[in-house]
């Protein structure tokens, strides 16, 4: 089973981040959501591995949970 790679895979991480930021620039929230949704599907297919995808989903969910707990503590 391949594991989700969370080490940096880009020689230039800033460029990758910027590429995504620029794709969203000037879009409404709804348009951004639409763009992201298509991106998720395209990239998920490129990965092509359900176990890796499952780990990626889990990481994204853990982060959501952590973020909401942090918010509660601050309140």
């Amino acid at each position, binding site marked *: 089973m391949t594991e989700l790679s969370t080490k940096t895979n880009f020689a230039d991480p800033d460029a990758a981040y910027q590429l995504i930021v620029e794709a969203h620039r000037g879009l409404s929230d709804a348009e951004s959501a639409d763009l992201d*949704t*298509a991106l998720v599907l395209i990239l998920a*297919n490129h990965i092509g591995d359900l176990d890796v995808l499952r780990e990626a989903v889990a990481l994204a969910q853990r982060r959501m949970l952590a973020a909401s707990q942090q918010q509660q503590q601050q309140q």
Partner: protein
Amino acid sequence: MTPPSKTQFGYRRHTDQDRAGVDIAAYPVVVVGAGPVGLSLAIDLAQRGQPVVLLDDADRIGEGSRAICFSKRSLEVWDRLGVGERMVGKGVIWKVGKIFLGQEMLYQFDLLPEDGHKMPAFINLQQYYAESFLVDRVRELPGIDLRWRNKVTGLTQHNDHAVLTIETPDGQYRLRADYVIACDGARSALRGMVGAEFEGEVFEDQFLIADVRMTAEFPTERWFWFDPPFHSGQSALLHRQPDDVWRIDLQIGPDADPAIERLPENVRPRLERMLGHGDFEFEWISIYKFQCRRMQRFLHGRVVFAGDSAHQVSPFGARGANSGLEDGENLAWKLAMVLRGQAPASLLASYEIERGHAADENIRASTRSTDFIAPHSRQERRLRQAVLSLAKEADFAKRMVNGGRLSVPSVYDSPLSSVDVDAWAAGPRPGSSIPDAPLQRASGEAIYLTEAFRSAGGGFVLLESANGAAVEAPEGVGRIRIGGDAPLQDAAGSFAARYDASPGSAYLLRPDGYVAARFRHPTRAGIEAAVARASGRGGQ
């Protein structure tokens, strides 16, 4: 709305109704519910020499086309039951489906891209035709005692039998049965009587079915639209039935009022928008919502559940009636063997295991289709729309477009199967149903493998790729030998290819035409062990 003639059946008083107390009539099997599943199961049992009492609370075949798509596997079952050719003769044969987004076709699929199968991928046939052909077959067979207007109102379970209380126009009577088979549909009364839960996912979206009679030039294909121009934002389905009847299925959302939507004057304009004309008559209108759910257990003491009484799915994928017919074929031979004392009663546990897995698979597939067709949230809809728009240029997205994944028989991960010990590059693995193949008799006459199976005795069958002397098979095991000096030949090579059948290899088939075991070098001892295991006597 004209149902065909011959749908009304007479109630007849039976002498069993005069018996009471300790004197009540006793039967090995009582099947409750004369729908497609109950009728087919009764025929299967009768053909296996097992007499059956079949009860139905109505005295007519249900109105409306209802289930219309019958799968290749169902047709193969019906062929074995002597009604397959009649069903195909009347039905509309199809194998191509097309999916549209708006006006544009996204992709098409072919459900049976190869030749050499007796039965087509699918036929469409109104359920009332299927039921009336099955009733005709019941009447041809000795051993089925079909009683209309016999409504089961009570059940008492005992250690080795059950007693049914039955309401008739002449009052109540009781019957004793070794086994009761509940084929009494989604609203099963027997399910309530055994106290079983029937929970699952409820879908809020409503769908409008209109079967209309019209002459039209659409091809004989399944057409499914997402967001068609004539029914904005929703889905639509068009499917052809015999007698110039067309099934139209329109998604109308969770908030539509069914009492208003089902009025012909409200349905008519919707269809006129779709068809571009008003030249049609209504045959049947229905509005439905659905649930995906199953009973936890299909065996409750002496009552066995089959078909919609045991599990329900959404209609996308034609997995309702077809899976019920597969339940029946799975149960019939096991029950017949148990009742004849050829197998322990525990063989029935494998029915629950195998058909339970199948129910899970069908529920999973139809839930996925339903989630795609009727997204639950804004983001789910956004995902769906992204798939649909990507599908125009990306193959991966095309493969995600889900307008229903059509019924195929399950592969059983079963305690009845003997694990492969040899290497196989292809062919049905143990637990799979047998693929058909075209063969020839010595006279040159064509015969299909499924037909050879049908005439091979109805029990376990050894399917052998002949190589010199025939393998010594245990008593009672039928045989089909192909190639070499055997009476059947594989001129087209389809059998060899579809079964990876090197000369001398053999498949052991169960009485329902599923593979129990396969051998590159079959021995009598190996075959005996596999038969024992598949009869519930093996378990090591």
